[in-house]
């Protein structure tokens, strides 16, 4: 069946016209040279691991994210402390979030297809992440079952993200190298929601979570 565009022309007709115009405009050009394209920019970082982690923490703090560092053994205590200090009680958990991170004494809604209203009505969310880029202080979510659907880290006003130091790379190209397969979904978070649309004055907290907390877990054995 031929799909008909609203103007009555077959859809494939517009496609063919555009492709024909492009081909006429590009005939006689060089063959594809994608593998040889110049990529002289910095691929690997120059910092040692400690400096790289310190840079990540510094960048997060520059964005006004609240950062706590801890050893793997202290993680549960650290999460408990963070939740308690938030003064909030209802939290969303992605469907695959480790059960021991869902601290007793707080109310947890596990995201098994929660409605938007239920997520919106929660006070906060706790998620894992896929990676982090120290150079820009970016937290990367690929929205696996521990990182949650996109909506769970979006609607609640308060987001606690657990980041292991082994997930931190220094440069953006190092992150791309870590992706064996390109992700189907990804969200790159570099600080809480912000705008500068009124006289270039930076205002935090427009539509995304206004409060970003990060627990950096030192899980690497010193080399």
């Amino acid at each position, binding site marked *: 069946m031929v799909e008909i565009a609203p103007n009555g022309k077959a859809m494939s007709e517009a496609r063919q016209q555009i492709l024909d115009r492009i081909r006429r405009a590009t005939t006689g050009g060089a063959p594809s040279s994608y593998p040889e394209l110049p990529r002289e920019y910095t691929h690997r970082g120059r910092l040692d691991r400690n400096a790289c982690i310190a840079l990540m923490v510094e960048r997060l703090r520059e964005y006004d994210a609240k950062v706590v560092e801890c050893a793997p053994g202290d993680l549960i205590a650290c999460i408990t402390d963070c939740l308690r200090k938030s003064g909030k009680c209802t939290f969303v958990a992605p469907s695959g979030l480790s059960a021991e991170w869902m601290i007793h004494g707080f109310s947890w809604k596990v995201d098994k297809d929660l409605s938007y209203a239920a997520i919106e009505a929660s006070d906060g969310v706790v998620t894992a992440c896929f990676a982090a880029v120290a150079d820009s202080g970016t937290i990367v979510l690929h929205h696996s079952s521990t990182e949650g659907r996109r909506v769970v880290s979006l609607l609640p006003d308060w987001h606690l993200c657990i980041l292991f130091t082994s997930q931190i790379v220094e440069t953006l190209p190092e992150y791309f190298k870590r992706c064996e397969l390109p992700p189907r979904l990804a969200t790159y978070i570099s600080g809480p*929601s912000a705008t*500068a649309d009124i006289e270039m004055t930076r205002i935090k907290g427009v539509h995304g979570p206004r409060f970003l907390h990060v627990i950096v877990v030192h899980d690497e054995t010193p080399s």
Partner: protein
Amino acid sequence: MSQVVLNPRNAPPFPQAALPILRDTQLRKNVAHATDVIQAKRALLVAEKQDWQELRAAAAAIKDETLQHLDKYLIEFQERCTATGGTVHWASSPGDARRIIVKIVQETKAKEVIKIKTMTSAEIDLNPALIAAGIRPFETDLAELILQLGDDEPSHIVAPALHVNRSQVREIFARRMGRHDLTDDPQALTAAARTYLRTKFLGVDTAICGANFLVAETGAVTIVESEGNGRMCLTLPRTLIALAGIEKVIPKFRDLEVMLQLLARSATGERMNPYSSLWTGVTPGDGPQNFHVVLLDNGRSSILAHHTERQTLRCIRCAACQNTCPVYRQTGGHAYGSVYGGPIGAILTPQLMQLEHAQSLPYASSLCGACYEVCPVKINIPEILIDLRAQVTDRERKQMFRIFDPMYLAMRVANVVLASPWRFRWAQRLGRVGLLPFTRKDGWIHSLPSLGSRWTMTRDLRGIPNQSFRQWWRSRPTVKR
């Protein structure tokens, strides 16, 4: 503000449109402040990036490769997007794109849509078409919301409301949201926008967005933003329509490692913008389940055919050229009569119009080259401006009605006079005598009558000296060896 015309088909020529704006001291102050702030931030972050030039070179090469094989990459994008559950539409003209989008929205029976800032939708005049079809568009980017509520037009491609200051925003919000309690504190104004839009995000089921990059390899679409309104629109509705120029495609996912680094630093002076989103077709259980991409040509394929002008399509819409341009910084964006103002607009708009309109824009530049220097994808804007000027002139001088146009008449006379030394000498003598009555004692001509006043209206003219260089050369005492 509503007299601003951003349709190149009926906008007044640049010099005419710029005049009233140059008298608007408030607007000029707003534009100067905003562009100063962005430039200062950008300069710091570009300076700290030691591989900036290498990133620029890589980005330009990636874009050139894509453009040379655009057919292949677009087909690959369509295949991957379709395989992952999206639908790809092709639109030759703005009219085609409007019809396709209106039809998709009508099929969902939606009466309202939420929008992420997309300059491409302004390029095709989408909002009026939606309204005519009984669909109410809500802009969700703070700047776009300010413009929509204030019946104003965008003046910058990254910060479209930078010509509006805080007290003007307060006035607009008071009038249109009924929020008379607001002060002009940006924090309070932003909070008002958050409250105003929250119900829309949760209640409106169809969203329209642009695209920063389309990834051919995977069929993914990328949007970069700051506020989170983008993530809302990309995640919550059931239907999502992305409108993208055909030049937005890049070959591989990995190419984003170059583009994202350049875009954030160059556009807003950030190491990375607060939120970037990437999604591929439809993901069951996560986000819109009805996803469409509309690929727009609208003159882009004809730009591709010109060797020099092709670089225009490398543009990643960072607006660094606008912020640095000494012309844009005086006039803001509205004078350009197009959603694309500043240096990039001065080359893009006339080309999208196939030089049928906006012919004055290639002249809206001092050719200082600042735009080329800041461009993250190395578009040689001055070179294209000069080439477009030549094309405009070539067209105009062939037009019959311009036979008696004073400028072309003067050029034809100059052509004859400058062709012979004898005629040139006599013209100099005639000129000296003819201009003598207008030359003041200081050697300058401050005002000329009739046509000459077009020059002296805005600048002085040096009087012709009593002696030409050749006369001086002949009369100088010869040194004997």
